[in-house]
């Protein structure tokens, strides 16, 4: 009797808790019920994964390899939910570092922004990184000024007997001003491995390209991104290669989808989908379409781009600035 008296309010407490935080509902069911997939993408363009937003006949659209992947996820969710209404992917555009915060605050179901879970330091607590959707990427370097390229090449030549790329890069870049993007893999790599550089931390890749004070000698970022932009956007910058012309990678990185560490069924859903996309050749096809093929991003944005969640868009995107890292 005493127990009944003591516990009679428990149901109400439980109801209140589940109303505030639906513990019993897994993420997949929530997405199905909501009919919306809340996806975070970085406002800083990471071509060819995410191109700058453009205006089309249908309104603002974003396109890129990451966007094509998001469409695949939304299509697979529509099939999973068995709903007559398609699951719509709504894009929350935010600064790259804020993606992690928004994900932790449950404002997003997942985010895709060409991030790597294989570089030490890129996996904050509470977040889960999927199986790779883009393999064999890595951190690479670009240089604009011929005298810097010559100096690096000479250092590489000296190190040619030594097959250790890391040592060659440490020697080659020693004393140079190297720009990285805040919080990205290149930043973590440089902090851990390039002690003798003058590190400059930039808010975005375009900021690193544009900044004149200090003058940037080298920019580090994902190889796939640097390869694209040096071919099509900033053609006066060049990828650093080995002395034999082979592409230089400072380390390998695979790119993953990021979601909450708690949603096990959703994690399996994503990994199973990525496995299927890889097995069926879709991932390879996407890679070829965005990395190797000739195309105009604006036309693709018109044909297959996704709209932005306008309420979630910053007033205007400013590519930000660069500043010297502490101790540099």
């Amino acid at each position, binding site marked *: 009797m005493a127990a009944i008296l003591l516990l009679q309010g428990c149901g109400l407490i439980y109801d209140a808790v589940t109303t505030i935080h639906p513990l019993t509902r897994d993420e997949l069911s929530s997405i199905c019920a909501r009919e919306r997939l809340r996806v975070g993408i970085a406002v800083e363009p990471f071509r060819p994964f995410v191109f700058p937003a*453009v*205006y089309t006949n249908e309104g*603002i659209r974003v396109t890129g390899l990451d966007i094509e992947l998001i469409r695949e996820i939304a299509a697979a969710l529509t099939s999973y939910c068995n709903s007559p209404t398609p699951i719509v992917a709504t894009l929350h555009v935010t600064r790259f570092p804020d993606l992690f915060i928004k994900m932790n605050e449950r404002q997003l179901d997942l985010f895709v922004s060409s991030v790597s879970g294989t570089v030490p330091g890129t996996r904050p607590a509470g977040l889960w990184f999927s199986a790779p959707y883009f393999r064999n990427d890595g951190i690479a370097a670009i240089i604009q000024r011929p005298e810097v390229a010559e100096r690096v090449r000479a250092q590489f030549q000296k190190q040619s007997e030594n097959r250790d790329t890391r040592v060659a890069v440490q020697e080659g870049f020693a004393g140079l001003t190297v720009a990285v993007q805040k919080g990205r893999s290149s930043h973590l790599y440089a902090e851990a491995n390039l002690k003798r550089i003058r590190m400059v931390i930039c808010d*975005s890749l375009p900021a690193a390209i544009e900044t004149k004070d200090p003058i940037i000698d080298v920019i580090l970022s994902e190889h796939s991104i640097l390869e694209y932009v040096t071919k099509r956007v900033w053609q006066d910058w060049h990828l650093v290669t080995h002395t034999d012309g082979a592409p230089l990678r400072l380390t390998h990185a695979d790119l993953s989808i990021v979601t909450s560490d708690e949603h096990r069924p959703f994690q399996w859903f994503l990994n199973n989908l990525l496995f299927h996309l890889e097995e069926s050749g879709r991932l390879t096809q996407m890679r070829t379409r965005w990395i190797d093929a000739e195309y105009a991003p*604006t*036309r693709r944005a018109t044909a297959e781009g996704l709209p932005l969640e306008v309420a979630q868009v910053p*007033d205007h*995107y400013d590519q930000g600035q660069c500043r010297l890292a502490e101790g540099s």
Partner: protein
Amino acid sequence: MLARSLIFLPFGLMAMLLWPHCGWAQPSQKETERTAELLATLLDAGRVVIERNQPLINDSQRGDKGFSPDVFERLVLDEFFRQTQIDLNWSASSLPLHAKDLLTLLLLASKEVVADAQFVINQRGIGYKNFIPATFGSQAARKFSKQSKVTIKQTTLDPRNLRNAPDAYEETVLRRLAHQPASTTPLVEWIDGGRLLRAMMPIYYSEDCLTCHGSPKGILDISGYPREGAQAGELAGAISIQIPVDHR
């Protein structure tokens, strides 16, 4: 007295909502034709303003461009005045019956498009943004048409955007216009036994348009579409307007 006014005010508002046609006469055919002409001119004015501001919109060095909906509105009203000698702020009485409402609605739809595009326009470090007369016009026309019984559409014989493909009527008129000397006067016709007004205002390529639509034909322009090989003064397309006789 004040209390009585407050009691009767809601009834008055309710009456307006329940019987919106009370006291409003259907416009005459001439008034409807004039309304169509003015609507086409207003959309064209918006297109002209977007075209003239391409260097600003695509300036990669600037973040906030200051090309706000209010600035756009002022420029459109100036351009509309230049083309029609009608000041939409002050000349309500000189406009055909009902035209003022429709022009206001189109102006609001156009401003909404510019407001929606602010994020794209104000990106720094990004050059070409595809906020061009065609994409502006498509969205403004669509937003307006959704809120009205009047339909506005941009159309051309060889559209890049298939939603702008001409219907049979538009195709016939466009073919006729392509062989006529250039004129900005809309072609106006009542069809369906006088129940539907169709108006087509031709648009011609200017020098500025040729960056994307000129020569060499077939070579991709900045947005990835093959250039049409057009020349200045050639017919680019038309603004097509449909007004049903019972559009109120």
